[in-house]
């Protein structure tokens, strides 16, 4: 199975390249396109890591919705990012520190892919072994999603609803209002 590992590493490398490009490129149209590529790469990676459900979700979101939403927003704003006068030093320090902390912490996480990790040994076995008896669907992810942790999914559905409500509140009505015509309330 060394080939899966190789594909895995290759996809991660491509992700890193695309991510760096996202940082550098100023044309927002190109950013949107690279964002699409980024999402495709992630979906491929998830598939390689045996998570087809996540892959299909990332793919559907990435190619079906996220790109279209970003383009939809671009029609209402400028497409070029202007160079920022922000100081780069503080963000860089914060990010490097966070990264260093995470690296430090991650070194004691059990190695990738071992069968005796706590993740595989504690709660998971019941899902994989008892699910057939307790719920009886082929796809264990569906069983966990809709039954064992069905309440999380209710919350997730509510999050989408909340986003829908929010976007409608922000963008519906008052379409005729022009830039700068808003009066200061205070």
């Amino acid at each position, binding site marked *: 199975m060394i080939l899966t590992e190789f594909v895995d590493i290759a996809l991660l490398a491509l992700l890193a390249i695309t991510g760096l490009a996202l940082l550098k490129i100023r044309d927002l149209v190109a950013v949107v396109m690279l964002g699409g590529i980024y999402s495709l790469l992630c979906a491929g990676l998830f598939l390689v890591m045996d998570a087809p459900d996540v892959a299909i979700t990332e793919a559907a979101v990435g190619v079906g919705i996220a790109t279209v939403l970003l383009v939809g927003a671009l029609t209402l704003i400028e497409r070029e990012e202007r160079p920022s006068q922000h100081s780069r030093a503080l963000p860089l320090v914060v990010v490097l520190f966070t990264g260093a*902390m*995470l690296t*430090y*912490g*991650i*070194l*004691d*996480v*059990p190695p990738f892919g071992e069968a005796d*990790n*706590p*993740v*595989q*040994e*504690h*709660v*998971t076995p*019941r*899902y994989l072994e008892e699910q057939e008896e307790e719920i009886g669907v082929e796809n264990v992810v569906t069983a966990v999603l809709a*039954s*064992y*942790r*069905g*309440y*999380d999914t209710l*919350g*997730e559905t*509510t*999050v989408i*609803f*909340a*986003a829908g*409500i*929010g976007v*409608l*509140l*922000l963008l*519906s*009505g*008052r379409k005729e209002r022009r830039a700068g015509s*808003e009066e*200061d*309330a*205070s």
Partner: protein
Amino acid sequence: MTEHLPVLQVAIPMMAALVSALIPRGRVAWGWAVATCWIGLGISMLILGQVLAGGTISYELGGWAAPWGIEYRIDHVNAFVLLIVSGIGAVVAPFARLSLEREIEPSHLPRFYAAFLLCLSGLLGITVTGDVFNLFVFLEVSSLTSYTMVAMGQDRRALTAAYRYLIMGSIGATFIVIGVGLLYAMTGTLNMADLAERIPEVASTRTVPVAFGFLTVGISLKLALFPLHLWLPNAYTYSPSAATAFLAATATKVAVYVLLRFFFTVFGASFSFDVMQLDYVLLPLGLVAIFSMSMVAIFQENVKRMLAYSSLAQIGYMVLGISFASVTGLTAGILHLFNHAVIKCALFLAVGSVFYRIGSVRISAMAGVGRQMPWTMGAFVLGGFSLIGVPLTVGFISKWYLILAAIERGWWPVAGLILITSLMAVVYIWRVVESAYFQPAPGGRESAREAPLALLLPTWALIIANLYFGIDASLTTGVAIEAARALLGVGS
């Protein structure tokens, strides 16, 4: 049906929000929201009664036992926070109608009430849950709706405030997810009680302290703890009055609760304070927050912004209480959770009433308001007393316990500092009082009248609560002491 109360507490506002979004008329949606909030308040009272009588309640969602399914677990701490959140919701909702009709387009009202109810549901969901990932999900429900409510303010700066809030809030949430992921990698579980059992086995690894750090930073972002508070002042200043009052009184309080839950239940007091030396981080941060934010509040021209900075200072008091890690200190922190919610909500409602009448909340514009709106400003003054910590108000009770806790640890200077910062509160409240009572009303505003009864009643209900719990504090302190004992694992 009583055994299902924990889930009904969250599900009823959630389902009511879904219906509210489809109601065509704002008034009807408002009535619906008020009814929902009052039912929620009733449920949380029943839950508190159950917890006081029978101890911790556990509710298995979907009928799946704890580490496999999601569990709702309610002890004294969250029962108390539930009461705070739903109580504030029940007071703000009646206030909202007139205030929002003035500040928001009529066609948006039903959806705004839907967002409000969802936010309430999300905050309640965070409070009752015993599962760390479920906590994240409901955190996002409440966060997304808060961003929306903030963005609905009239001023265009409300939009940038909401955007900044969204970015900071999402970073905070992602940090929380990273922390949860690290814990999950080490223990294989997401249930808080189960985590608490399994963390000691792996506490000596490098991962658990890092997870602790990520969770602390993430929650502190949501909490607006001192260096991570940049999103808060503008968000509170420019959002609609009712939303400000609700968020100021609940959102940060729930974040404080989450902090308590992680520090004391999940990681355990001994890990948090003995291994991680948390007190040496929280104590200075709390003190700096109290001092610098009170100082900034003094120089504010906009009363809402002044109160927002004062909130940041009050968060400092809560964090200070937590940093003592003693029963008295925690009692002070938890009491202040309740007391500050009551105080700040009352103050923001009073300011909202002033805005309703005169259309501005600048100190200079409030000149002469004291004589034109005696009841509203009377409420503001009483609320201000409470904020300062005058005896016979709730503000006094929490400061009293805070000073007791400081003395208990032998930190006399800290006790002195707490007294000094109260004087700073006197200064900024005085600036408003001075303008409202001792300056003539500007021309063209002679006709400003007292705020309508629908706005006065909720405000005064909170002021009366301020005085009542300031005189007879046995109920709140009793619960707070029980809660502190439960968190520290000291038998009661």
